[in-house]
């Protein structure tokens, strides 16, 4: 099968902007054009015309030479104009199938289809572009083939709507989705850079300039907040999460529409995130992590399965998907807090020392000792850090929680465990504390994937390491024998505790 012919004009236009850009650039900066334009209009037009012709020819050839076939077991792609590439992707290895459509593509009626496997790197296959109906057909077909049993297919199978984003939630999403890491950077950067340097230059207006840095910072914050809010609203407009047999499907987006599938059997971990604003309002979001996306693909790589919802609702959904029951977190020992007090005190002292150093060198910061005032913040900071830590395990899952600014709750089913490690730094050694790291294959970027139980009693950490490993072995064995221990997608055993005779320990 070929790509949709309508993709030729779209691709030409898409690439034309690049070509025109290059030509305009080269015209303006071409040599010999000292006084104004380099070339006359006629030759510029000729260049543009030739460029367009070349692009059109190339894109036509590309689209004509791009073929894909569906065999019983694989999705084959033969592509390339001069150097040909033939790629076969086994259906069962496909992790996600995504359809993306921006507003222009919607007008013409074409869509981009992306197939992801766990192979890492880029998408395994990107079909640019096929018709809308073909995109839907491929998505359906691949999920059928993946199950390998076409006869069982029931076209009228119910689309269970698991979640739908309403207007109110969309508004809350806009307000709460801000990148606070950037915020902090701005505040620190601007107030530090802004004040002393400026004060040095214009002595009389010191007071005013000292204010200017923070003011600019606050302005930038508000701007960032608004922008990221609008972005989030555009991104998640009309979000719906459906369950279709053994698959989750989602659709979202106002200008750029996405429709994606997440096979339940490929779910690695669930992560529930609450930044401090959302938490204050009682809201949270949930990310379903698969091994399909490579780390470092940007924010797009981690798809929010539920962009925002009441906290209870999110946990309810987590129960539906992963069968984790009531989660009763255990806190690390109280002495962990002493560590944080020590750590933050050291940080404040270090900052003060740096300020003092600057004063010694330049004589500018006579008030350097005011840095010590930050010590006031140490106890509450340590408390907040401590209070948001927790871990929990049951018959089927390990759950860990940490973070104040954004609290992350990671749910890892035992059968997704890759390696288990307990670690102890020399600072933890003094307090008899340790950290348990449960690694999975999910590629949720820098923060994703691993369940980390920070600063628990070292004996607990070691015991848990063995326990997680043992339960992993049991569940792996059970899965191999065809006794599916996971309650994935089965509403009826949503307690996640009941039906696991093979996990008796």
């Amino acid at each position: 099968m070929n790509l949709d012919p309508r993709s030729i004009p779209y691709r030409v236009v898409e690439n034309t902007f690049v070509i025109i850009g290059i030509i305009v650039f080269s015209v303006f900066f071409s040599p010999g054009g000292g006084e104004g334009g380099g070339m006359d209009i006629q030759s510029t037009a000729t260049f543009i015309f030739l460029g367009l012709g070349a692009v059109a020819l190339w894109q036509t050839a590309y689209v004509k030479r791009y073929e894909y076939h569906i065999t019983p077991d694989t999705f084959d792609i033969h592509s390339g104009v001069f150097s040909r590439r033939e790629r076969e992707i086994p259906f069962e290895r496909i992790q996600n199938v995504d359809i993306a459509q921006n507003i222009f593509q919607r007008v013409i009626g074409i869509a981009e289809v992306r197939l992801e496997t766990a192979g890492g790197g880029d998408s395994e296959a990107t079909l640019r572009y096929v018709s809308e109906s073909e995109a839907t057909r491929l998505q359906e077909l691949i999920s059928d083939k993946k199950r390998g049993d076409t006869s069982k297919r029931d076209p009228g199978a119910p689309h269970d709507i698991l979640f739908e984003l309403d207007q109110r939630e969309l508004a809350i999403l806009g307000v709460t989705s801000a990148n606070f890491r950037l915020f902090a950077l701005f505040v620190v950067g601007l107030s530090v850079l802004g004040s002393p340097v400026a004060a040095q230059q214009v002595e009389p207006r010191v007071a005013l300039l000292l204010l200017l840095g923070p003011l600019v910072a606050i302005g930038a914050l508000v701007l960032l907040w608004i922008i990221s809010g609008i972005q989030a609203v555009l991104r998640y407009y009309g979000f719906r999460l459906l369950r279709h047999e053994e698959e989750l499907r989602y659709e979202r987006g106002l200008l750029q529409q996405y429709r994606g599938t997440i096979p339940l059997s490929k779910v690695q971990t669930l992560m529930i995130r609450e930044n401090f604003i959302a938490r204050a309002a009682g809201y949270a979001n949930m990310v379903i992590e698969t091994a399909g996306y490579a780390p470092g693909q940007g924010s797009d790589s981690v798809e929010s399965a539920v962009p925002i919802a009441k906290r209870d609702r999110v946990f309810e959904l987590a129960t539906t998907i992963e069968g984790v029951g009531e989660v009763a977190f255990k806190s690390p020992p109280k002495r962990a807090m002493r560590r944080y007090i020590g750590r933050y005190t050291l940080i404040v002292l270090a900052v003060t020392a740096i300020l003092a150093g600057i004063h010694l060198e330049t004589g500018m910061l006579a008030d350097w000792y005011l840095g010590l005032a930050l010590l006031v913040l140490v106890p509450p900071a340590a408390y907040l850090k401590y209070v948001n830590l927790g871990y929990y395990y049951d018959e089927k899952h390990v759950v860990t929680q940490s973070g104040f600014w954004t609290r992350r709750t990671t749910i890892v089913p035992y059968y997704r465990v890759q390696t288990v490690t307990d670690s102890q730094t020399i600072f933890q050694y003094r307090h008899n504390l340790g950290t348990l790291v449960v690694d999975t294959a999910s590629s949720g970027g820098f923060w994703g994937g691993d369940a980390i139980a920070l600063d628990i009693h070292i004996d607990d950490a070691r015991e848990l390491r063995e326990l997680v490993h043992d339960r992993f072995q049991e569940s792996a064995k059970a899965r191999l024998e065809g006794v599916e221990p996971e309650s994935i997608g089965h509403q009826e055993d949503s307690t996640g505790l009941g039906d696991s005779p093979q996990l008796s320990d």
Partner: protein
Amino acid sequence: MSDGPEKSDVPPGRRTDEEDSSKPARGDEPEHHTDDRAANSGLDSPDTTDQQERTETRVPSEKELFDGVTEQPVSEQEQSAESQQHQEQKPVTEMSFDERVAAAGDAIRKSKRGLDPEQILEYTTDRRSLAPHVQLEWGVWTSVYVVVLTLVFTFILGNLGLDPRFGTLVLIVLFITGVVWVILRYRKWVYQVRADALYLERGVLTHRRSLVPYVRIQHVDTRRGVLERWLGLSTLVVYTAGSRGADVSIPGLEPDEARDLQQRVKELAIEAEGGDAL
């Protein structure tokens, strides 16, 4: 099915089948056995009498089966015997390519009913330390860092108008720290091949104990840098699909031991079948 064929780049022959061991060995196999034993004799892994016993009663390994059906028509006889036993199909010669591949897959799956626990125990080890002369290797690297750091410090001291001879002091302090660190690092390193997972203990400032289940192992490398070759050392690297997969490596092994360990881990990984390791 797990990716057996790719993994079997080491001589086959350690695999047996619990059930099939009762069957008489087929007549066309002994040549293979001698080959296998010759190839395996360099390894000091599970003791030789056991090995002999096992090689005599073993079924063809995956590599053999797979190669046999897909590439070498020579062993088709063996394969057809195997597949008829299991599934009463038409002879291999009449199968299409796809069918032959499928048959090989079935045969592999069926031959994998697991080593019995005793045999698995033979692959395990007790808690082991690294080869002592790995300290030399680390010492060399640490010395390089110490020298560079000393130069940097001396340069800074000079710039601050202090006596550059303080550099000697810095050198001594750094050197002692380095030596202590190398010795501690060596002492803290422990690895153990357990029945179901590879166990690692390491780290001075952060002490870590890891379990790497065999089911999760994607592939196993041995690696030798220039310095390692001079010192007669080798590093075993175990890859998993986890985001911290690259973490799992055991340095400072004698080359023979590294190969032996690779063999053990490989066999156990093949044995521990578990889907697509994700």
